[in-house]
């Protein structure tokens, strides 16, 4: 009877470990962001109200402290950390307020002046204000987003966009791409019946899914389709495991680099351009030398391609490397800390 007991103890230990893991997961899911968001406004709003009108002249504090925020997922945090370290290297004092939730909670926090700088996706950032203005051109989206901030009491400035973007990506396996000669989405219509399609459950009503596919001449719905949420782990695993041959992922999703998927070129620009750009409050920019401050951030953005974003995503999301270390290494490798 000794052995079964020991086995049972191990099982209990395993079960206990699982419970701890699950508890950890759920607690990291509910970030401190909402409480920070709900607790802070009264104090900080008044602070902002008093600070904004009497914004100091640039000469007084040329390198004023900058409060950097981010959304609650690794890519946003990573960009925020990159900007933070570059600014620290340039002599600015940085306060990090990462993980402010999703755009729904983060935009009000930024608007109230609780943070000075956030990394933003120009497509979705613009879509937050007006979905109909979003285009497949990153620079156009940046200009339109800037116009929204101009309308909102000249709130903020959208600095130069990075070439890197995280948008919806039509993805196939390398073996499919090779055997059917697929490089761009226009190539799909001719072979559509040879593919098992992984499409999100809202595809029928989503113009970025159904309408986009139809604009490439694909008959919708395709013969074989499986309903799987886009950008999720199961759809990537299903593609890798050959249960499907086509999947909608996010263009910087670590799975793309991890499994070596082929991203098909969206040659008709059906998907919104989601280039990353730092958005900075104008009341903060008034306190610093705007040109010098922007130059620091622009240098970082300029080097950040979609490939680089994906690689960094694998390090943070798959290899579980420390976000700060990854950011520092990348900045060093790109000569931005010298």
């Amino acid at each position: 009877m000794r052995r079964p007991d020991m086995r049972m103890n191990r099982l209990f230990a395993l079960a206990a470990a699982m419970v701890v893991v699950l508890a950890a997961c759920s607690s990291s899911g509910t970030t401190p962001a909402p409480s920070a968001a709900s607790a802070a406004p009264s104090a900080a709003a008044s602070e902002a109200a008093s600070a904004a009108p009497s914004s100091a002249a640039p000469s007084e504090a040329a390198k004023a402290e900058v409060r950097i925020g981010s959304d609650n997922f690794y890519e946003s945090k990573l960009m925020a950390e990159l900007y933070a370290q570059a600014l620290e290297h340039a002599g600015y004092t940085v306060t990090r307020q990462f993980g402010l939730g999703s755009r729904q909670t983060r935009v009000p926090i930024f608007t109230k002046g609780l943070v000075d700088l956030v990394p933003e996706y120009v497509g979705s950032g613009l879509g937050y204000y007006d979905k109909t203005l979003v285009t497949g051109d990153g620079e156009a989206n940046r200009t339109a987003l800037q116009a929204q901030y101009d309308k909102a009491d000249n709130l903020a400035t959208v600095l130069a966009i990075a070439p890197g973007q995280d948008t919806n990506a039509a993805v196939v396996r390398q073996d499919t791409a090779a055997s059917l000669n697929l490089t761009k989405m226009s190539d799909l219509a001719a072979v559509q019946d040879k593919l098992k399609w992984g499409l999100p459950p809202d595809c029928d009503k989503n113009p970025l899914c159904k309408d986009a596919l139809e604009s490439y001449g694909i008959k919708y719905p395709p013969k074989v389709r499986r309903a799987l949420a886009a950008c999720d782990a199961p759809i990537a695993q299903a593609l890798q495991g050959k249960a499907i041959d086509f999947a909608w992922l996010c263009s910087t999703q670590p799975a793309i680099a991890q499994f070596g998927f082929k991203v098909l070129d969206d040659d008709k620009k059906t998907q919104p351009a989601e280039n990353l750009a730092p958005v900075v409050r104008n009341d903060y920019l008034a306190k610093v030398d705007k040109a010098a401050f922007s130059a620091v951030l622009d240098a970082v953005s300029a080097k950040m391609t979609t490939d680089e974003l994906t690689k960094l995503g694998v390090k943070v999301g798959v290899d579980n490397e420390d976000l700060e270390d990854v950011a520092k290494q990348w900045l060093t490798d790109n000569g931005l800390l010298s």
Partner: protein
Amino acid sequence: MPDILGWLLDPINWSGPEGIPSRLIEHLQICLLAVGTATAIGLPVGLYVGHTGRFAGLAINLANIGRAVPSYALMVGILPIALNLAPSVGYDPDLGLTFLPLFLAMTLLAIPPILVATYAGLREVDRDLIEAGRGMGLTERQILGRLEVPLAVPVIIGGFRTSTLQVIATATIGAILSFGGLGRFIIDGLANKDDAMLFAGAVLVTVLALLVDAVLAVVQRVLTPRALRGKPAPRRPSDDDDEDRIDPAMFGVRTVDVSA
């Protein structure tokens, strides 16, 4: 308030491969398969540990892992394995996506109530009866078949009912991995912000679960030996509710001393 009734009465939703009848059949098929497999595993094991008293703690705790781990986590956790095994074992990877993870997660969820209830039902049988049986020269097999099982039938079917209820509700998560079934309406309703579809899906699952449970309640009553009908459970100490029906979940779960 979404127009749930309007959605349910719309003839469009009652036809074709994506209509309610075909989704209902898909739903029932996988539930039947999961409960069937769970019975094939849980019942014999429960009978063995219940009759002999051997390995009871081990079997029950092992089985309870299936109940403790969330089915969703189990399903998503099984997915990569089910997909990766497809080429080597030689099944269609589509099965590894739409069927195997859900089926295994549901089966693991369905085993514990059946196993535990079977064990508990047998242990509840009066020891004096069994001794008397032995005294009369019954073999162990006869004791199990003629004494223990008939007396334990209400409790065993109670476990079966619990298991079936859980499985009917849980089959809905299969829609996340593109399985059909009634969960399709819930997941698609969520994704499309179609609240009428979402709630109608939930209503359909609930009604199905209650209907199936009602049928099983009748089965339970019919299979219960005449002498036990209309009475509280045999030798059930401190009966605090006076329903004449045996409450399977409470009975099956509460009376098991796991540390034994």
